[in-house]
């Protein structure tokens, strides 16, 4: 089956980047790893710049070209004022657009927060559930809520009943943190699996993998011959 040169080059490049990044596991910081590292930063920065300019073009430049200066005047001025930070003498002016951005963001978030994140959550605290397991879960939820909250009461000394309840709360927090940490483990495992897929499922990836294994074996033999204690 004929393989197009374009996709093959992309696959080879992808494979090289993955294997280059993984080379850290064998050789630590090495020239190939450094190339991959700085390239990743450079590409990401370039992509960010492109998108930023694209947004400026769509939201500011094109409306001005179409004669809608009034609609973009205030955002344009506030945006430009942000750059006054570059001079120590005029840096104070940049506080105005920063204040506007922070104020709007906070204002929008805070006005909606109590209902969505506090009141709606408190409604869950029902003792009655559709199934015995759900009812038991509600009881656990309520115990976890109050015991965890009691852990953060600092106006009362955590002794006696309060201390015991706080200790229960600490265990609930440990369980919650464990669940989150487990989630992070799952997330972190998914990334190299994606890379392994790129290496194993494409012709270019398979070529790079074979070359990498050969280079690895040669490198190990070379290191051994020089009596280097690497692996």
């Amino acid at each position, binding site marked *: 089956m004929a393989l197009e040169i374009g996709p093959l080059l992309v696959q080879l490049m992808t494979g090289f980047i993955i294997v280059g990044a993984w080379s850290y596991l064998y050789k*630590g910081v090495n020239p190939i790893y450094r190339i991959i590292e700085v390239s990743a930063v450079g590409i990401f920065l370039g992509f960010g710049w492109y998108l930023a300019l694209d947004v400026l073009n769509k939201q500011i430049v094109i409306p001005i070209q179409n004669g809608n200066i009034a609609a973009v005047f205030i955002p344009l001025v506030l945006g430009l004022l942000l750059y006054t930070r570059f001079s120590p003498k005029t840096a104070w002016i940049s506080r105005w657009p920063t204040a506007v951005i922070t104020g709007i963001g906070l204002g929008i*978030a805070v006005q909606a927060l109590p209902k969505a994140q506090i009141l709606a959550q408190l409604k869950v605290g029902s003792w009655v559930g559709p199934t015995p397991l759900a009812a038991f879960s509600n009881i656990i939820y309520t115990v976890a809520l109050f015991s965890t909250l009691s852990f953060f009461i600092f106006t009362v000394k955590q002794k006696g009943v309060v201390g015991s309840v706080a200790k229960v709360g600490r265990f609930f927090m440990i369980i919650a943190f464990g669940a*989150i940490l487990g989630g992070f483990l799952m997330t972190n495992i998914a990334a190299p*699996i994606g*890379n392994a897929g790129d290496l*194993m499922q494409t012709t270019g990836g398979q070529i790079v993998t074979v070359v990498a294994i050969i280079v690895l074996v040669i490198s190990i033999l070379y290191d051994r011959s020089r009596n280097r204690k690497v692996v």
Partner: protein
Amino acid sequence: MEELPNKMTQTSQGTMPVADRLIFLIFAILICIPFIAPLGLPLKISPSTQTYYNYLVNVKPGGVIIWSEEQSFANWPELGPAEVSTYYLLLKSGHEKGTKFIVVSPNTDGAAVADRIFKQLKPEIDAWGLKYGVDYANLGYVTGLEAMYALVVRDFQALTTRDYYGTPVGDLPIMTGLKDVRNFDLMGFCISTSAESYMRQWWGYANSLGITIPILNNVQAAGAPINAPFVSTGQLSGMVSGLRGGAEMERLSGKLGFGTISIDAYSITHLYAIGLIITANVWFFTKGRRKKE
């Protein structure tokens, strides 16, 4: 000057201790094995994924779906499979029931990720006769985060002037008549972490108007425990999480892809991680006994 211990010296030079490298080497081999020889481990559809799927396939005929694409390319291996399945089902719904599907992105990568998925599904889009701007649209990256989420549900027409491809939004027939959350039938978002901002703005505003609109979430496994309370309260109608959720969605949608292929590697590496945790704990708790001996 006193010489640093071997482990510290190695780490400061940018290399890892031998034991750590061995752990990662075994890990690398384990994740590659299922790609060479698939194991076919069983996969049960979780109730959470089933609910998510049910909402996707039960949008009313002619309904409007708003989707916020907030994943970055770095999260693609984990979030990609479920997201491709989601787009596939929503576009299929557009073909079968005339629903409209609009994507908007609050982060820089999101719009490009959406574009990648639409390109990946181009054979289906062409086969179903769906037209860009009429049946589906990618509005691109819109700045503002919290303010942007609020704008989606309050003043949709003011969200952006041009779509991802530079077409004026006013020229897209799909945008006609869409003012605010009252014109939407399903909302959803793909995110790597917390759903709090969406709950504040989307659910909060809909609730203040007395509207119940299903809101779905495709989230990384790391974010699932954080967002789970919103599922309990019904603020989130459905949630699919991680690569496993992606594999489940592929199975439900019938469009098998990377999630299905990689789920064996996912399972096997989790068994390996559990084994490492048990080994490390046994080693730690028997340390005192070994010292006595």
